[in-house]
């Protein structure tokens, strides 16, 4: 275990931990508001560990929806992680099976973005770095969910304190981090339009899978770029640093 890499991971992940803290608190508060107990909310943060889908989950719990539908919705929201783990494969071949287990368990959006960025920068993606980056997000996430559940009564309406804008703004930041990739603009535009249409006519959470599928398909059929694909490494390097 490389200590320097681990510490570097901790440092990188702490920015994400800080940025995700409001969402952890919000999740805890909304979970309790929707009838979950504190321990159930903590259990969900600790086992599911996926912000957006946890939010979807508690919303459905509140509506007395069938269990299978809750699980299916969470699967749909998290379906993007199939593609994350596929994209990450080329950088983690040297991990042991146990290390891979933790790698996939901790694979949230910013973790993926930063891990790919590091892999593409040419430096080896070490498990020490990955674990440091991951646990400094994971542990506060669980603790802050509990704190949010306890303080929930004080937050009141998330809109009144402007919390509702932070999640989309946060995802927008991650999207921008990839703006120098091939076909970024057509992919982003097509995914945006498709997801809004799916949201309108199919419903949440399917807009995530459907919108993404259209953008990814477009990237697959667009003319392939010339073979110097490594230009992309420096492109991603410039962004996705904080949060």
């Amino acid at each position, binding site marked *: 275990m490389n200590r320097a890499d681990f510490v570097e991971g901790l440092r990188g992940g702490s920015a994400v931990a800080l940025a995700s803290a409001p969402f952890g608190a919000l999740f805890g508060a909304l979970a309790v508001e929707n009838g979950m107990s504190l321990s159930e909310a903590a259990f969900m943060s600790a086992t599911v560990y996926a912000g957006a889908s946890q939010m979807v989950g508690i919303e459905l719990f509140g509506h007395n929806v069938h269990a299978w539908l809750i699980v*299916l919705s969470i699967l749909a929201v998290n379906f993007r992680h199939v593609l994350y783990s596929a994209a990450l494969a080329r950088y983690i071949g040297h991990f042991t099976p146990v290390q891979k287990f933790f790698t996939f368990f901790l694979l949230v959006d910013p973790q993926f973005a930063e891990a790919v960025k590091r892999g593409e920068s040419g430096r080896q993606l070490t498990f020490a770095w990955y674990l440091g980056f991951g646990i400094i997000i994971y542990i506060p996430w669980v603790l802050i969910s509990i704190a949010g559940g306890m303080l929930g009564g004080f937050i009141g309406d998330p809109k009144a304190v402007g919390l509702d804008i932070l999640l989309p703004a946060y995802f927008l930041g991650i999207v921008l981090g*990839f703006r120098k990739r091939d076909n970024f603009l057509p*992919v982003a535009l097509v995914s945006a339009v498709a997801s809004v249409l799916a949201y309108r006519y199919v419903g949440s959470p399917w807009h995530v899978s459907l919108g993404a599928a259209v953008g990814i398909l477009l990237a697959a059929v667009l003319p392939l770029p010339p073979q110097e694909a490594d230009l992309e490494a420096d492109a991603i390097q410039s962004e996705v640093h904080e949060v």
Partner: protein
Amino acid sequence: MEFDLHMALVILAAAAATFATRIGGYILITRMKSIPPRMEAALNAVPAAVLTTLVAPAFFIGGWESKLALIVALFIGLRFTHTWMLVAAWIVVMTWRHTIGA
């Protein structure tokens, strides 16, 4: 502070589903000997495509203050870090809601 068994089982099922998505792509891709260029192009598009679907509907259904906040955040994001995007979006939303009204 009760811990409902049914609720716990649903949460565990959700956790298993999430873990399945997080390992599924890896299992699929490592079964294949090499990655065809078109599949690689598709994989490279994954982050932008997926994350866009988390932003666009929020822009679409959000009020005018949310739309303005995201546009401001977009321009801030072209020059500054993500933290500043969050701060800018939050300031726009709060200013709008506390002056013009929600």
